[in-house]
């Protein structure tokens, strides 16, 4: 049952992605991008990951706002005629098809959907987290215990990544980073 719902959501996201690729109007690509994010968030909910569903929905809202802010008055219609001719796209299509076939039959060896590889061996870190996550860290939400205690070093790196990208965005958005007196901005 869950597999069927996930398939449905995946097809919905693939159709959304096709729309995003072929659409001319920038603003509507941003909006369709939002629907893909929401489809992903609902998929997380069905896969038993409520943590991810909340974070994905909220992050998707913020990225939707940022994308719309970027495209709102810059919505120039793409002129269709100068899109690259079909010839230059065929080699790319061939590579993509070969890549898909090769990866497709390698993916057959993945553990079947529904019985993950960690289930079998008790020594796997996931089982250790599930078994004594509560006793060792006191947190009943095992995912929060992983993020902030067992692998808290990752989350420090994670907070630094967000901190770096925010500083980067702010330093790029500053209008005048070079002193004006040396050379004017042409």
């Amino acid at each position: 049952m869950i597999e069927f719902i996930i398939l449905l959501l995946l097809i919905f996201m693939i159709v959304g992605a096709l729309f995003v690729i072929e659409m001319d109007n920038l603003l509507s690509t941003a909006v369709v991008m939002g629907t893909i994010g929401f489809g992903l968030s609902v998929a997380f909910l069905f896969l038993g990951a409520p943590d991810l569903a909340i974070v994905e929905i909220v992050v998707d809202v913020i990225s939707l706002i940022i994308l719309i802010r970027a495209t709102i008055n810059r919505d120039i219609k793409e002129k269709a005629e100068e899109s690259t001719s079909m010839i230059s796209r065929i080699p790319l299509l061939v590579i993509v098809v070969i890549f898909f076939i090769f990866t497709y039959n390698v993916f057959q060896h993945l553990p079947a959907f529904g019985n993950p590889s960690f289930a079998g061996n008790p020594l796997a870190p996931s089982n250790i987290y599930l078994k004594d996550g509560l006793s060792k860290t006191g947190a009943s939400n095992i995912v929060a215990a992983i993020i902030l205690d067992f692998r808290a070093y990752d989350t420090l790196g994670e907070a630094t990544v967000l901190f770096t990208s925010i500083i980067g965005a702010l330093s790029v958005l500053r209008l005048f980073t070079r002193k004006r007196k040396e050379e004017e901005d042409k």
Partner: protein
Amino acid sequence: MKGMSQIVKVIAELVKDFIILFGIYIILNGHLSPGGGFAGGVIIAASYILITLAFGRERAMKELSEKGSHILDNFGVLLFWAVAVLGWLIPGQAFFSNFIQRFAPGSPYNILTSGIILVCNIAIGIKVGASLFSVFTALAHFESPLKGDDEE
């Protein structure tokens, strides 16, 4: 940008405090129920963005000025860094160890358990909220760049 129509303003006025309350709830209950520092912080940032969209930049600046969000952003990440380094400084503990839980373990299933997880959630919540709001004001400010005003 003077903001949107009157209906939006009235609703925004009503809703914004509940959104902040919901964000704080998500942060504080990060170790009990789904959610946590990231989700709660982004929700708080979304409430301030709602104010900016509904009432325009001047009103939002009164709520949380650009300088204030810059300071809060740094404070949140420095708090998280300090909790990690504190674990390193305590002789018996390693870097990032949950020393609060080891010395004073709370009883499970209520808020005051799991030592540094609660503190770190609050730190991440402050940081994510403040930094996303400062990016949004930078993008919004960029929209109407009055020529030559930004000569920092």
